[in-house]
């Protein structure tokens, strides 16, 4: 059913911290690893070892350079996956009902046995969150690891999306945005979590935390000055003994550096 629900009980989603992300792509790899072996069709690669490799990924990390009006540019790593929008345009365009948004937790999923592979949902998504698999010819997208988060066969600490579980920098957080006291709601409130392309009217559930402002230094002080000052006038201890001994061999007077 491709009509969007009026209301979802939970709003499960991710908070992605652009201040903390180091751009290691571990989330990309763990996502591909988990999702190629579990829910739905595997994420195939075409020509993986050849001249023109390509493949299906549900999560990709871009890097952007931001040039402020004054000062040095800043490099920001930018992981991007499905934002599980409240007003998901990918769902309503689907002609077969394969795309749907779950009323219980708001996760946007594809029923792969109903997908005709027309690609219209990928056109409707402004974020590039959907990719047609080159082998299976059905639309693939982030499931928020729906087969992990409720999976009682996994230890409790593993019941979160693979990307969140693997992130070594702690830049990804998973939780329920419908609950104002959840970790993700608090982080969003504290750090000014933002929507991507708000003008598209998709009301994304996932939020991005902007990079924290950079420290500013008083420009009167030469920041290299402490490094330029001599550390020691005369060599001391063991180094001093070597210096003196070598000086004697040379027949010269030893001196400071």
């Amino acid at each position, binding site marked *: 059913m491709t*009509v969007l629900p009026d209301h979802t009980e939970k709003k499960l989603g991710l908070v992605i911290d652009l201040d903390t992300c180091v751009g290691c792509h571990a989330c*990309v790899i763990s996502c591909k690893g988990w999702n190629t072996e579990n829910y739905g069709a595997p994420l195939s690669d075409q020509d993986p070892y050849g001249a023109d490799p390509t493949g299906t990924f549900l999560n990709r990390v871009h890097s952007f350079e931001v040039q402020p009006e004054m000062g040095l540019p800043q490099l920001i790593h930018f992981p991007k996956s499905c934002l599980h929008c409240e007003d998901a345009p990918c769902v309503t*365009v689907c*002609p077969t009902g394969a795309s749907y948004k779950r009323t219980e937790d708001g996760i946007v999923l594809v029923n792969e046995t*109903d997908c005709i592979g027309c690609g219209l949902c990928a056109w409707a998504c402004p974020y590039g969150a959907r990719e047609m698999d080159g082998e299976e010819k059905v639309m693939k997208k982030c499931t928020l690891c729906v087969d992990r988060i409720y999976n009682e066969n996994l230890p409790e600490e593993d019941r979160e999306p693979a990307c969140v579980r693997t992130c070594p920098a702690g830049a990804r957080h998973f939780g329920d945005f419908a609950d104002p006291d959840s970790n993700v709601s608090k982080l969003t409130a504290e750090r000014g979590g933002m929507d991507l392309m708000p003008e598209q009217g998709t009301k994304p559930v996932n939020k991005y935390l902007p990079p924290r402002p950079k420290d500013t230094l008083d420009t009167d002080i030469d920041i290299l000055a402490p490094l330029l000052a001599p550390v020691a006038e005369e060599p001391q201890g063991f180094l001093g003994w070597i210096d003196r001994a070598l000086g004697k061999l040379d027949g010269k007077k030893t001196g400071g550096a």
Partner: protein
Amino acid sequence: MHPAPSVIFFTSLSGLGFGLLFFLGLGYPGSTGWVAFVFFALAYLLAVGGLLASTFHLGHPERALKAFTQWRSSWLSREAWCAVLALVIMGVVGLGRVFFDTHWTALGWLGAAFCAATVLTTSMIYTQLKTVPRWNTALTPMLFLSFAAAGGALLAGQIETARVLLALAAAIQLAWWITGETALRRSGTSLASATGLGHIGSPRAFEPPHTGTNYLTREMVFVVGRSHAKLLRLVAVLLAFAVPIFVLTLPFNHMLAAVAVLSHVAGVLVSRWLFFAEAEHVVGLYYGAHASRT
């Protein structure tokens, strides 16, 4: 957007086919027997041929029947319904005309209405996409409807109507191109809004997520050179509109009519190629495309 031949042929040919069926449904021309058979056969070849072409871009064409289920929300599903209803109703009208020498007027009007609805729903598939600002305008349905009407009138041999409709379609095409130039900028979507980093400074795509291509870049990130596009626009206007209008002012004969039709079809195909090739999908911004147009 990637200009896929299957979709270009589908929208162009089925537009012409349903345009011709529209006029046949209204009773222009009201011919019967073998003459009607030729008109209806041509219309069905174009309309059904176009629909078949559209299935070539499906990943799973064997599941195509499922596309009839979501007419409440999906324009693609509505298009499927309208196309089938138009073809069935006009099929009955055609039977009457070819074999029973009668024109069932009310049924003809109903069929014509569904032909127009088919073209409208096709255009709405593109119009509804906020992600492609160039398409997201009321001018897009007008463009598709005027093209289908002009081509239909031309194929139906309605010379006076065709001349007027060709000129109208040309005007809408020009308006669509002119407003399209600024569509991405007016949409407000830019790399700054896409990343939310605009408050720090001016963002630039530094490094893509991978060294190769992916489905998104192949399907949605297509950039056509401005000078190349300008030349193709000129070719499209000359072939689709100028040549047919000029030919239609000459004394009628079947050879000239064929020249007018073939020129129009070629021009529509060029215009439709540009419709896709020039359209900027906002996901391209993440990959460093279209920055000069935001």
